[in-house]
């Protein structure tokens, strides 16, 4: 990346230079349709629309493919343990584990074409674009006999695969579409089990493998109403919450016994 820095700087200077005044530099502006997603008792997942426009677009038509746009929606990073079972004396037990210090709890990516065609590894790695390029830091608290790169990769692949199965990692290779010379849109699905917390939406604009612009925005995802009340009670007043649960359970048991009591 650093190797190309002079070239990039030169390019920027060229762009503002008088010689190229008639072809101003492109940039991107974007937003999400919803800034706030409420998780209520009827929450069954939702979709957010990420849309934006390429400023100073030179694209002749929506289908021309002059620009590549990648939309990434990320949840707050959290530590995760990946465990591996193996056979011990005929039964399957967790024997190895690898702990990652911070892994996005939710990661949705949509692009105009597969990200590996859009830009090269170094750029994708630097911005954490794409499942294979998400930053995952392994911590010392892992329990595995092998420390080689192959094992690390196997655990990483498993982590991504499992997150995909849970539908919290979503990839849509052609999910971003241009609907005009400069206007583009992408829908991002939030599954019912989306981890609750703030989301960050990133929009990256690429042209011929070079990143021209980036735009970030926050989408709040929070519990509302009764869900919020119950969750807060369970987390901050666990003793009272537990006692209330027991009283409700005992009360319903007694109520049913009374209601169904045989006329003696």
């Amino acid at each position, binding site marked *: 990346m650093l190797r190309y820095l002079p070239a990039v700087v030169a390019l920027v200077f060229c762009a503002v230079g008088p010689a190229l005044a008639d072809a101003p530099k492109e940039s991107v502006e974007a937003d999400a349709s919803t800034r706030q997603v409420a998780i209520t008792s009827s929450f069954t997942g939702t979709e957010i629309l990420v849309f934006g426009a390429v400023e100073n677009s030179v694209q002749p038509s929506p289908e021309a493919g002059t620009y590549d746009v990648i939309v990434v929606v990320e949840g707050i990073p959290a530590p995760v343990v990946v465990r591996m*079972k193996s056979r011990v004396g005929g039964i399957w037990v967790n024997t190895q584990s690898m702990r990652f210090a911070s892994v996005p709890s939710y990661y949705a990516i949509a692009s105009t074409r597969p990200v590996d065609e859009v830009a090269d590894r170094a750029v994708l790695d630097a911005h954490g674009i794409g499942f294979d390029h998400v930053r995952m830091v392994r911590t010392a608290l892992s329990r595995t006999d092998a420390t080689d790169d192959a094992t690390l990769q196997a655990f990483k692949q498993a982590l991504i695969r499992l997150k995909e199965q849970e539908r919290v990692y979503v990839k849509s290779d052609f999910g971003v579409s241009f609907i005009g010379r400069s206007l583009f849109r992408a829908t991002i699905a939030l599954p*019912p089990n989306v981890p609750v917390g703030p989301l960050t939406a990133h929009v990256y604009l690429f042209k011929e493998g070079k990143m021209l612009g980036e735009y970030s925005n926050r989408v709040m995802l929070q519990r509302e109403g009764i869900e919020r009340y119950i969750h807060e009670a369970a987390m901050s007043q666990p003793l009272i919450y537990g006692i209330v649960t027991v009283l409700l359970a005992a009360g319903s048991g007694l109520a049913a016994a009374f209601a169904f009591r045989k006329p003696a």
Partner: protein
Amino acid sequence: MTLYLPIAEMSVSVLVYLALGMSIGFLSGLFGVGGGFLLMPLLTFLGVPSAVAVATSASHVVASSVSGAITHYQRGNVDIKMGLVMLAGGLSGTYIGVGAVKILRQAGYFDFTVAIMYVVFLGIVGTIILVEGINASRRVKATGVVASRKSGQHNWLEGLPFKMRFPRSKLYMSVLPPIVIGMFIGCMSAIMGIGGGFVIIPAMIYLLRMPTGLVIGTSLFQIVFVAALATILHAVENKTVDIVLALILIAGGVVGAQFGTMVGEKLRGEHLRVLLGAVILLVAARMAFDLVMPPEDVFSLAAVAGGS
């Protein structure tokens, strides 16, 4: 109709869980057991995280045991003194069990331990109940009367110190066996999310030699308190009690239990025991199968406790 569960963090169909609660309630009314041993595996099967399933099952046990305990108390079938002695052990056992759950979850062995305990306990108890039920129905067929057990046998349990008089059960015995049994059941019930009736009842009959008429009432009496403590401790220590899920299951459960009791009164005791033994063995076999078969995916994910 779907509902989002605040602690399990998943969206579920209310009808499915009401039906689940109802069927568990039906079986528990039919057999006179708490039904926790069926509820917890079925919940995990439906995708509820196992720690949430265990904690929430405990609250279900409270609901399904409390009405039985009250009924037996009113009929004078509860040996309060014996119940309290067992409870002393039971409460400390529960405390140990909930702590063990916390440690096992952090180490990644929780699911495995629960599965092993289910296979071992359900396997043993299911076999005993089944064999005994089959023998009993044969005896009834052959002679027409249910044979009564011999009493007055002596064993090493009677040599233990700290003897106490239990007038209601007409026993004079050491307090150690009931305390140890209570402790063991409490620990087990906290880890497995069950009331433990199917273990505690045989223990009270064969080890403590309590009069059979008092056994069910007394065990229910102590199960209510042990399950209540397990629920509260799980809520405090592991934050895994889902009150919404609990209420759906209980609502179905208490209704199902009434129908189960009605059907149960029409069936013969020995036949019920054979059925119960078969159901218990089925659950054990199902869990053993999962342990032995190569898993679909050898990898699994877990959030780090306290990490989010």
